[in-house]
């Protein structure tokens, strides 16, 4: 057994790539070993800005010998087949063995030195390494065939116990020499073996363990804050990022001018974090303090010099931010909003001001209709101002502060709290993990904004295709779904989208409430109307994707999707259905349903079919007509008159249907979907028995027709709960 060390040294690896690179190295190495028939006791990986390393413990010194048996042609097969096989395995005919009339070739593969395997493996891993972005460099890059790596690769250490595993790639030859910290330790560092790697480098001011550097930063930053009487605002993302930027992390606390604290804390934190990768601190009252913690990569001669440099950079950034903060407040949001007339939303969709106009109408309408329980005036007010911060200096500088800044400026102006909150949160939910707003005014604006975006882009046929979704419409649809579901908003998507088209086209009102010219292009409105149908399906499709991720079968969503586009109800139905179809009753009922449906299909029993001899005007005995069913209050209370005495199983099914169909229909009507499923479950035994005992295809045309009608009624009763034809299995 031996321990193996691999170090791939290069110029600074981007911080964000290091964690994944460690995983990739471990995986590629383990795979290569496994292919060679080797396994290590333990594989550990390391990453710093300047190196990616791996230690594999307890490697056997050689691979085990194996005998590989290959099956060949049958004895007596044409000579060409045998010749071909012999060529393939590299043996002659005498060396083949024969078993059960088939030739076999047995090739003995002797064990190989592990060092030899590793020498082949290392260049292969380097060539196959899946960096998100890689590059060429140096004189070798005169051809595009030259080696690629994340940044120029400068050295390889490959040691099996104390011995160098000799290998090379593009002129870089393996050895035992590396470099220590770029500034603290000049000159080469020789590594004796894997066991000495970590400590030898530590002595050269390099902490190779990524997690150890994280710990030093996490704890060091917290300690620096504590020593200043403050609490660090924990930020694990920053810990990891700084660990990826340092080999010898030294957290240092600095102070910035207290006067900057007038700027909203989010702005300060964002400036510090995004631009400078600094932590921020809070005082004992939980308020942002005028302190930052930066992470140096050196034990500086005088840390105060480093801190002061960082302080200056932060101060320059913060003074920009403060300038914007003060400048922006010289105008009201309503004044800022006028600037939206200059910003194109999309060349075919007019300006952002046009969009705001539509969103304002929609937000008001959503409240007036009672779809959202918000105050219509406040919703409209918030909607009219929700995009105003886009033309502020602050959002120009920090686009990620959109919404938040509008909220701050609204509050500073003294606008109602609901309005300020709605402005602040109307972009939410942004991603899957983001909170969904619950304040009614916010919900109205958020929903109106997203529906408008969807309707408009569908109108101009800018739908997502494949991996392309430049206007993030999938995300907008998902946000609509989450807003609806998590707030329990009840409405039919299809008809609402249709009505919304009218809402959008309502005449504009100016500040005094006077009707004024509608700027919206009439053509666009027509297209919005025609686009809304596709949009309805797009939203339902997104629901399917979302529910699939939540463990809901897509076929079950399909089974109810045609029934309903009230998303809340639809989902309740799907949940009940999923619970049902996984029961024994559910599975069997589905089988019975499929059998009935197949027979009906084979017999050409479609929706238009009627029992022979019935007047066109009379009630549909088949119950096939869903409309008829709903006119009857969704009940199959049609009295069935048979011209013959039904067989017991037939009678039992008739009775069971008579009982179950209205029960299921009532339950569906009252949104008690579990009860609807329970009602269907009572049909399982009768339908099974019916198929066992009754012949549908009776010679008597009357019997045959009546039984087909019975099956159709069974099918329709099931359909009223869900379209079982969509269910797989």
């Amino acid at each position, binding site marked *: 057994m031996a321990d193996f060390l691999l170090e791939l040294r290069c110029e*600074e690896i981007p911080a964000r790539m290091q964690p994944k690179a460690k995983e990739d190295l471990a995986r590629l190495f383990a795979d290569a070993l496994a292919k060679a028939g080797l396994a290590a006791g333990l594989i550990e990986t390391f990453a710093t800005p300047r190196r990616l390393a791996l230690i594999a413990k307890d490697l056997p010194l050689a691979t085990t010998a194996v005998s590989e048996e290959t099956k060949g042609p049958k004895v007596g097969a044409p000579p060409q087949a045998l010749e071909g096989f012999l060529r393939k395995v590299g043996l002659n005919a005498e060396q083949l063995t024969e078993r059960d009339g088939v030739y076999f070739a047995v090739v003995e593969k002797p064990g190989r030195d592990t060092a030899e395997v590793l020498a082949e493996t290392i260049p292969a891993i380097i060539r196959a390494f899946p960096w998100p972005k890689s590059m*060429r*460099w140096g004189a070798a*890059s005169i051809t595009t065939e030259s080696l690629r790596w994340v940044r120029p690769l400068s050295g390889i250490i490959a040691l099996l116990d104390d011995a160098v595993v000799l290998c090379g790639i593009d002129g870089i030859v393996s050895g035992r020499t590396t470099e220590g910290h770029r500034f603290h330790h000049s000159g080469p560092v020789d590594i004796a073996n894997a066991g000495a790697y970590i400590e030898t480098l530590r002595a050269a001011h390099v902490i190779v363990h990524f997690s150890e550097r994280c710990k030093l930063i996490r704890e060091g930053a917290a300690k620096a804050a504590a020593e200043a009487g403050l609490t660090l605002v924990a930020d694990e993302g920053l810990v990891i990022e700084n660990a990826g*930027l340092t080999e010898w992390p030294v957290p240092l606390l600095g102070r910035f001018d207290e006067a900057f604290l007038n700027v909203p804390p989010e702005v300060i934190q964002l400036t510090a974090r995004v631009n400078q990768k600094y932590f921020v601190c809070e005082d004992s009252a939980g308020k942002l303090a005028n302190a930052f913690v930066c992470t*140096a990569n050196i034990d500086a*001669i005088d840390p105060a010099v*480093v801190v002061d440099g960082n302080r200056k950079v932060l101060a320059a950034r913060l003074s920009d931010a403060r300038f914007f903060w003060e400048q922006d407040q010289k105008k009201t949001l309503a004044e800022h909003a006028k600037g939206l007339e200059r910003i*194109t939303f999309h060349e075919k969709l007019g300006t952002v001001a046009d969009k705001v106009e539509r969103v304002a109408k929609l937000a008001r309408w959503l409240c007036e209709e009672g779809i959202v329980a918000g105050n219509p005036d406040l919703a409209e007010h918030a909607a009219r101002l929700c995009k105003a911060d886009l033309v502020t200096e602050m959002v120009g500088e920090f686009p990620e502060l959109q919404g938040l800044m509008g909220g701050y400026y609204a509050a500073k102006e003294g606008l109602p709290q609901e309005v300020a909150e709605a402005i602040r949160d109307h972009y939410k939910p942004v991603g899957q993990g983001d909170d969904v707003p619950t304040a009614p005014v916010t919900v109205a604006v958020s929903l109106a904004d997203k529906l408008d975006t969807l309707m408009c882009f569908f109108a101009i046929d800018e739908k997502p295709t494949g991996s392309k979704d430049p206007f993030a419409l999938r995300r907008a649809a998902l946000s609509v779904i989450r807003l609806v579901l998590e707030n329990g908003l009840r409405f039919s998507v299809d008809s609402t989208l249709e009505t919304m088209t009218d809402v959008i086209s309502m005449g504009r009102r100016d500040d005094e409430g006077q009707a004024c010219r509608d700027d919206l292009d009439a053509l666009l409105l027509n297209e919005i109307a025609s686009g809304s149908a596709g949009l309805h399906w797009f939203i339902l499709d997104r629901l399917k994707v979302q529910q699939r991720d939540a463990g809901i079968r897509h076929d079950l969503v399909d089974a109810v999707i045609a029934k309903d586009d009230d998303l809340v109800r639809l989902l309740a139905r799907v949940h009940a259905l999923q619970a049902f179809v996984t029961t024994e009753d559910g599975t069997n009922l589905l089988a019975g349903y499929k059998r009935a449906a197949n027979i009906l299909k084979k017999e050409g029993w479609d929706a238009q079919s009627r029992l022979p001899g019935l007047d066109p005007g009379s009630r549909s005995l088949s119950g096939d007509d869903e409309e008829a069913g709903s006119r009857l209050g969704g009940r199959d209370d049609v009295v069935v008159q048979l011209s013959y005495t039904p067989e017991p199983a037939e009678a039992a099914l008739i009775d069971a249907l008579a009982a179950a169909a209205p029960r299921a229909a009532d339950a569906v009507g009252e949104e008690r979907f579990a009860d609807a499923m329970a009602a269907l479950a009572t049909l399982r035994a009768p339908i099974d028995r019916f198929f066992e005992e009754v012949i549908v295809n009776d010679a008597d045309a009357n019997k045959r027709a009546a039984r087909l009608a019975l099956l159709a009624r069974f099918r329709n009763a099931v359909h009223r709960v869900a379209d079982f034809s969509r269910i797989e299995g």
Partner: protein
Amino acid sequence: MATAMESIAKTALGESSVTASRDPARSFQDMILTLHDFWSAQGCVILQPYDMRMGAGTFHTATTLRALGPQPWNAAFVQPCRRPTDGRYGENPNRLQHYYQYQVILKPSPSDIQELYLKSLNAIGIDPLAHDIRFVEDDWESPTLGAWGLGWEVWCDGMEVTQFTYFQQMGGFDCKPVAGELTYGLERLAMYIQGVDNVYDLAFNTAGVSYGDVFLENERQMSKWNFEVADTAALFDLFAKAEAECRNALSAGVPIAAYEQAVEASHVFNLLQARGVISVQERASYMGRVRDLARSSCESYAAKMTPEWEAKYPGWSLV
């Protein structure tokens, strides 16, 4: 005339005697001269700025066009950069519509390029054990030039002082070989080294001339011109003419001249932006037009030079 010649002669004489006492920590121009000395000693051609208005040193033909082809090329130069929208009428301590970049282009990128760069910092007075120097991921892409590269922004105590890029493509062609490009932000570096918080307070030389003495009035007037005065109709016209001239030069087989017109169009577009007369959707279209000019010029240049390159470097091919 005679006096002018005399004073030039005096300066030249004087210069040789003061070389050793250059003071990059107290003089902007000494910092530049120190960088010139350093990179000159590395075998770089020390060029003068390109005599056109441009947004970045990368536009200099010594960078863009020389990044194409197989021949080695090492050059260093100061390039004044014009960023009309960054003008602040001389009132912002950090932002300027005209500032200097120091560009070094090393092709192929030497294996010790990072060490060379750090030595150059040392030469201008930045001790890496006193200051925290970091290489922070920053990939570079210029759709205008059909170019991209990987590299870093170099931080000194948290301040970005240099862009460091390994060019991978230029003008839509793979760089064969790859060039390393260093772009120092001279004012920032000088402010840092001199310990000054306002760019106009920088000592330009050690004879009492400040950066403000040299440039403050320019910033005031040029900001006003960029934002308020420039005749937009004339600018639109200039853009169209540069575009047409670029095509004219291309069809005449003089791609370097065409490239100059692309650079001109690019700057005129920046001026139009500063005047706020280009709407969002027009912006994309103008950028597309500039990109077409720049790429066509690079392509035409590469195509024109390829026979020579292939003859000198057997086996090398453009694509």
